[in-house]
Structures are given as structure tokens and as C-alpha cells.
């Protein structure tokens, strides 16, 4: 399955590089320098960010569901996505930080929201309590974002913020890609290294403890990794929801329902799903400017609903 998903990612990446409002092949014949510049400075960052942010969200979702042993856990539900958005909003608009400052704000917001979650749920909390605490943290952060929006320096700044919160990969740049790559990659690698421990954790805390897997250590590692993987993504592309929730459910049946083993396929499936969504928003007719974050939510929300209905 991993090879298939990797192949799908490559196909989608090539399609993403080839698709755009300008026919690059024709431009190459006419003005190779401009074509090269468009390819490197616009298409490459967009394609790279779609793959990377999707992978980060997918892996984070799988790890969150494994850690909290709850199929409804994901960066959206537990708070790090909202935390990252709030951190980036505060850094960008109220502290006047630049692109790097906003990324740092996003990371800090994601990390703080997860720490708040663990503190609220308490040490060794049951899964239900953790998810409820996550929902509470998410709601609190949602309110804080609304507060930040209503305190925005001007009503026109408010429109800017709203568009930003809807998530998009439109016209992203190489510096933004360079900023996100190392942070998200470190996050994914940390999650992959935690995967065996997450599988052990699925056997129950006592069993895991007897096998030498400490819950606190795994929690700390996974929290930092999710903060890196989602925070950097949100800071560069805005809020893109539901990828982390959907993807682990799509891949888990193929990995024998082992939560830790779902991390890598989830990363690949997340990359493919976000790339496909980003290609879709580009193929929509001109004038219908659907934001990437809105599209993923349009797909994700009904999926979430089906998930809940199926569990009745």
C-alpha cells in the first residue's frame, strides 16, 4: 500500500507541477527564463507545500488517534490547528512579525494548545477525558481567534485575516517552502520514530509500561512532533482542516488496525489528499474562488458525520 500511495503522490505532484493558468511548455519555447522562474518560484513551492503539509497533517492525525486511543482525535478536534492559527494571527497582526515570526507563532500556538490539553486532562487521563478536554481547548481557541478577529486593527485587516484562516496554497514562495520543510520533516520523523511505542500503547497503558514504554515520554514526544508538523503548516498555508481526521481512517484497515503502523501510510495519504484538493481548487472555473481550507472542510465535515453515525 505504501508503494501505491507513494506512486499516487508522485503522479499528483507531477500534475500539480504541470497544471496552472499558464501553459509552461509554450512559455518555455518563447521565454525560457521566465518559464524557469515560474516553475521554480511558484509551481515548485505550491506542489512541495501541498505534499508536505498534507503529510504532516496525516501523520499528526494518525499519531493523535493512536496516542489518545480515540478515532475522533485529530489536530482539528484536539486544538493544535486552532492553536497554530491563533499563534500565527497574534504574531502577524498584533506583534507585527514577518513570515518567519508568523511561523514561530504558529508553532508556539500548536505546542501550547497541546500542553494545555494534557494539563487539562491530567496525568494518565482516560481517552474520553482527553478528547473532551481537547474539544474544550479547541472551543476556547476558536473563541480566542474570534476575539483576535474582532480586535483586528481595522475592518479591512479583518478581511485579510478571514481569508488567511480559510487556508490556501495560492502563490506561496520558495522561502515559505524552505521555512516549512525542516520543521514539518522533523515532526514527521519524530512521529515515525514514536510509531512502535504507539502500537505498544494500543495494548493498554499497564501492558505498555511493563514492556518499557512510558506514557509520559511518548506523550511528550508526540505532542512536540504534532506541534511541529501542524504548526509550521498552518503558519504558511493558513487553516486546512479535516485531513488529519479523515486520512488515518482511510488507511487503518490496510495496516491491520495497528495505530502506530498507520503513521507512515497516513503521511503519504495526507500528502496525496491535500495535493488532490489543491489541484481541484485550481481546476474550478474562473470566478469561483474556493479556498483550499474550505474545500477540505466541505469533504471532511460529512466524513466526520458519517464516522459518528457509523459508531451509533
Amino acid at each position: 500500500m505504501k508503494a501505491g500511495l507513494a506512486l499516487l503522490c508522485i503522479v499528483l505532484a507531477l500534475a500539480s507541477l504541470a497544471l496552472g493558468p499558464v501553459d509552461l511548455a509554450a512559455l518555455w519555447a518563447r521565454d525560457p527564463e521566465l518559464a524557469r522562474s515560474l516553475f521554480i518560484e511558484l509551481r515548485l513551492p505550491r506542489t512541495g507545500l501541498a505534499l508536505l503539509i498534507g503529510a504532516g497533517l496525516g501523520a499528526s492525525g494518525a499519531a493523535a488517534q493512536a496516542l489518545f486511543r480515540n478515532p475522533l482525535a485529530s489536530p482539528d478536534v484536539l486544538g493544535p490547528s486552532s492553536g497554530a492559527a491563533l499563534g500565527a494571527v497574534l504574531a502577524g497582526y498584533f506583534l507585527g512579525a514577518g513570515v518567519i515570526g508568523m511561523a514561530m507563532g504558529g508553532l508556539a500556538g500548536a505546542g501550547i494548545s497541546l500542553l494545555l490539553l494534557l494539563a487539562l486532562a491530567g496525568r494518565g487521563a482516560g481517552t474520553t477525558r482527553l478528547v473532551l478536554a481537547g474539544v474544550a481547548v479547541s472551543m476556547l481557541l476558536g473563541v480566542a481567534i474570534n476575539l483576535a478577529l474582532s480586535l483586528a486593527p481595522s475592518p479591512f485587516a479583518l478581511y485579510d485575516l478571514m481569508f488567511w484562516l480559510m487556508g490556501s496554497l495560492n502563490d506561496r514562495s520558495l522561502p515559505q517552502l524552505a521555512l516549512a520543510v525542516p520543521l514539518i520533516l522533523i515532526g514527521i520523523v519524530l512521529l515515525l520514530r514514536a510509531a512502535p511505542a504507539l502500537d505498544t500503547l494500543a495494548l493498554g497503558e499497564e501492558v505498555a509500561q511493563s514492556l518499557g514504554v512510558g506514557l509520559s515520554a511518548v506523550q511528550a514526544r508526540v505532542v512536540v512532533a504534532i506541534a511541529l508538523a501542524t504548526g509550521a503548516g498552518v503558519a504558511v498555508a493558513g487553516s486546512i482542516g479535516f485531513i488529519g481526521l479523515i486520512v488515518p481512517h482511510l488507511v487503518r484497515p490496510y495496516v491491520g488496525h495497528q495505530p502506530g503502523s498507520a503513521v507512515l501510510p497516513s503521511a503519504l495519504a495526507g500528502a496525496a489528499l491535500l495535493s488532490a484538493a489543491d489541484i481541484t481548487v485550481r481546476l474550478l472555473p474562473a470566478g469561483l474562488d474556493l479556498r483550499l481550507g474550505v474545500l477540505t472542510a466541505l469533504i471532511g465535515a460529512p466524513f466526520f458525520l458519517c464516522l459518528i453515525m457509523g459508531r451509533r
Partner: protein
Amino acid sequence: MTLSGASAAATPARVVSLNLCTDEYLLITARPGQIASISRLGADPQESPLAGRARGLAINSGRLSEVIEQRPDLVLTMGHDPQAVALAARLRIRLIALPYPTSPAAVATQVQQVAALMGNRPAGIEFAARVAALMASAPKAQPGLMIGGSGLAPAMDGLAAGWLRLAGISQQQGGQISLERLLVQPPPMLIRNVYRRGQVSGPQAWSLHPALRQLRATQVEADGRAFLCGGAAMPAEIIRLKKALAA
């Protein structure tokens, strides 16, 4: 309340504006001491080029409920605000909500109407004369593109485009502009609408995209604050733009 009916009433002594665009109208037509308060945006130098004239004036947050205690005898605002209109009717406060103007001529008419309300017709006549002079001296329109920080271009038949024509620019496209297409088919003249320079957000970072270095178009900066309303601050901005375009 309609403007024609309102202008017949006595000259108000305590006027409040709840909207940035009516703030600007008041700032160029009201006599000293006539303004009870304007909105906080009208007094913010980052939002209006006329903010310098608002020094020392009281400011409000744009809500009618907040200015009741200022006992205004006239409240001006712009656009659709049914709540304020209903509250004003209940409290018997004279409130005039001007429609959004759609052309420079409509702006000139509104300024004249507000000047008449303020009992200062000469200010309205002077403004209308400045707009008429700009219309008479408008250079032959050449195609160009005005674009905002997030890659959004004002509509081709809108108010901003109407003002641009007086500077000799015919807006050739509206809506979200793709950076790729902009680089491959650059407009002969690009007018960058600069608003809140130095304040970074996701969309505003668009105008800092490294690929824009490749843009092969003559570029001129417009004062985004004046274009927010496209109102009372525009004649001065169009004169400045004309000079910049001719340079």
C-alpha cells in the same frame, strides 16, 4: 430619512459620523466645532489621508448606541445599517445613511449634499469643481492594472476604476489576479495599491513574493487609504498619481 428632505432642516451644530467615508466628507465640509465625533478609522492616519484634519476631535467606535450621549443633531453613515436606522427612528435621532457611491461624479454629488447639510455649500462646490477639473483634464486612457496586497484587483466598472480613468488608466481586469498570469502577461502599467505597509499577513505577503522581481511592467504606487472609500481624499490622490504616471 432622505437627503433632499434633510437638507431643508436647520443647520446642525453637533454632527456625528459613524463611517470612515462619511468621516472624510465631514472633515472637508464641516465648520470648526460642528463635528461632535467621527469614527476611529477616520482619525487613524493608517486608514485615511485626511486623518490629520481630525486632530483633537472626539472619536467613536462606529456604533450609534455609543454616540447617543453626545446628543447629536445629525448622524451620518454610509451603506446599509438597518439596526442603526431603526434605533435612530426609535430615539428620534436624525440619521442619514448615504448609499455607496459608484462613480467620481456620485462622490462629488454626495460631498455637495453633505456640504449643504453642514451649511457650507462653498466647500461642496469647490470639491465638485476639483472633480470636474480632473474629468476635463483626464489624459487619454491607457490600459493598466491596479492590484491590492493580496492580488485582488478592483472591478473594471467600479468606483476605483472610475477614479483611475481620471488619472489616464483604464482598469483592464478585476477580481483575483494569478501571479503566474501577471508575470506572463504583464499590464503596460501596474498600480500597486499600498495599504498598511509593513504589516504582514498571509494575503499581504503576496506583494512581497520573490517572483514579482521578474515583473516586466512599469509600476506606480497608489495610496491604498484614499482608495478604501474612493471618496473625499481622491482628488489629491489622482493629481499625485497623474504626476507619478507621467514621470
